[in-house]
């Protein structure tokens, strides 16, 4: 999940008639559109969730950008470039969706750069070998899809439309990753080892993407009532494991979990939970790459300032010229 641990802001106590009417619309499957009345908590929670998701797409470009210049073939390089460009696009769709709720783009970027806003913990792990590009596409994009497909039905119109657009493009990401894994798993011994090593390092961080168990979370309940969260974190995690284990078997790779076992009764795998202490540390900013990722992002933003300002100055000048020409023609 790209938006982990989004604090939901439900109202406490009795629902007002307006809130009741709003909830009835959502229960009836109605979509909420910008400028319509909505509870302040709904608006705030959505801004938090959508912007967190957008930040994840933007920061998510960095671990892969690391390998663009070192892709093993020209074709792989083109594919990786296209994928990273998609992530940028996904970030932009989501920022636009969040802006319809009354927050500005600059405000969101400021929250990201100051460390106030979070992004997915997964992007704070390093990408050490080419096989990591395979593991990220297969596992990380796979986990993202698991979360995003149900969100296409979310109650907020602009968010739902962004998710639909993103899901259409995301399948390519997962398949290209799995394709890399297949190539390596069937390559030389050294390549197979790299693939296994990438799976070992990314398995648990991928499971963390869905966020901690929310079985007892009040926030989660409110978000689900508002249909801005469709499934619980545990449901999605279980679904992900069930789908991914056979894919690992097909590759001839081993999921790094000695307790992984098919449970006939529940029709799913029993598996080991990730280390949640590690998760909270990474979220707090103490993961292996937090500083590097945010540093790179801030540096890119600051060093691009002259260019953004230049384009603004040019646009201003051109507008003035047009205005002067129009006055002269009168």
């Amino acid at each position, binding site marked *: 999940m790209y938006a982990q641990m989004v604090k939901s802001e439900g109202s406490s106590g009795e629902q007002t008639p307006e809130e009741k009417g709003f909830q009835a619309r959502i229960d009836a499957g109605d979509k909420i559109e910008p*400028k319509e009345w909505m509870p302040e908590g709904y608006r705030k929670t959505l801004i938090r969730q959508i912007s967190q998701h957008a930040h994840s797409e933007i920061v998510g470009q960095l671990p892969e950008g690391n390998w663009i210049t070192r892709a093993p073939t020209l074709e792989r390089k083109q594919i990786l470039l296209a994928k990273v460009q998609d992530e940028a696009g996904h970030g932009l769709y989501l920022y636009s969706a969040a802006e319809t709720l009354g927050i500005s783009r600059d405000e969101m970027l400021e929250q990201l750069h100051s460390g106030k806003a979070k992004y997915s913990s997964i992007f704070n792990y390093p990408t050490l070998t080419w096989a990591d590009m395979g593991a990220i596409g297969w596992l990380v994009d796979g986990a993202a899809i698991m979360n995003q497909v149900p969100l296409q039905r979310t109650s907020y119109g602009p968010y739902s439309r962004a998710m639909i657009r993103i899901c259409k493009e995301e399948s390519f990401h997962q398949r290209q990753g799995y394709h890399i894994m297949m190539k390596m798993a069937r390559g030389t011994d050294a390549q197979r080892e790299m693939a296994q090593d990438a799976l070992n390092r990314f398995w648990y961080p991928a499971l963390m993407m869905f966020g901690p168990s929310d079985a007892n979370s009040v926030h989660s309940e409110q978000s689900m009532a508002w249909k801005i969260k469709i499934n619980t974190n545990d449901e999605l995690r279980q679904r992900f494991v069930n789908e991914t284990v056979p894919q690992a078997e097909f590759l001839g790779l081993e999921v790094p979990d000695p307790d992984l076992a098919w449970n006939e009764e529940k029709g799913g795998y029993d598996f080991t939970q990730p280390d949640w202490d590690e998760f909270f540390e990474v979220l707090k900013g103490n993961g292996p790459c937090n500083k590097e990722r945010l540093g790179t992002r801030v540096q890119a933003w600051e060093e691009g300032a002259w260019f953004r300002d230049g*384009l*603004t100055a040019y646009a201003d000048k051109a507008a003035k010229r047009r205005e002067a020409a129009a006055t002269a023609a009168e």
Partner: protein
Amino acid sequence: MSREWPLWEIFIRSQNGLNHRHVGSLHAPDAETAINNARDVYTRRKEGVSIWVVPSKEITASAPSEKGPLFDPAEDKVYRHPTFYDIPDDVGHM
């Protein structure tokens, strides 16, 4: 802090013969850059053959509160639809 680029609404014609359709929005300093950015953001997979960009601030929208007065009057005018009229089968296709 520098000034934020203005917001543009993007409309794409997916193929000739169809209307331009609203697909989303983006920030750009001017119209020309908005078109270039729209190409990268909204047509990476051949989704369009033509792009319109409109400054978001130039769009006037009906208010959600006007929904009733604006659209309810159409509700009780079933006679605007062809199925309102019973025409005997003997007349043939009409």
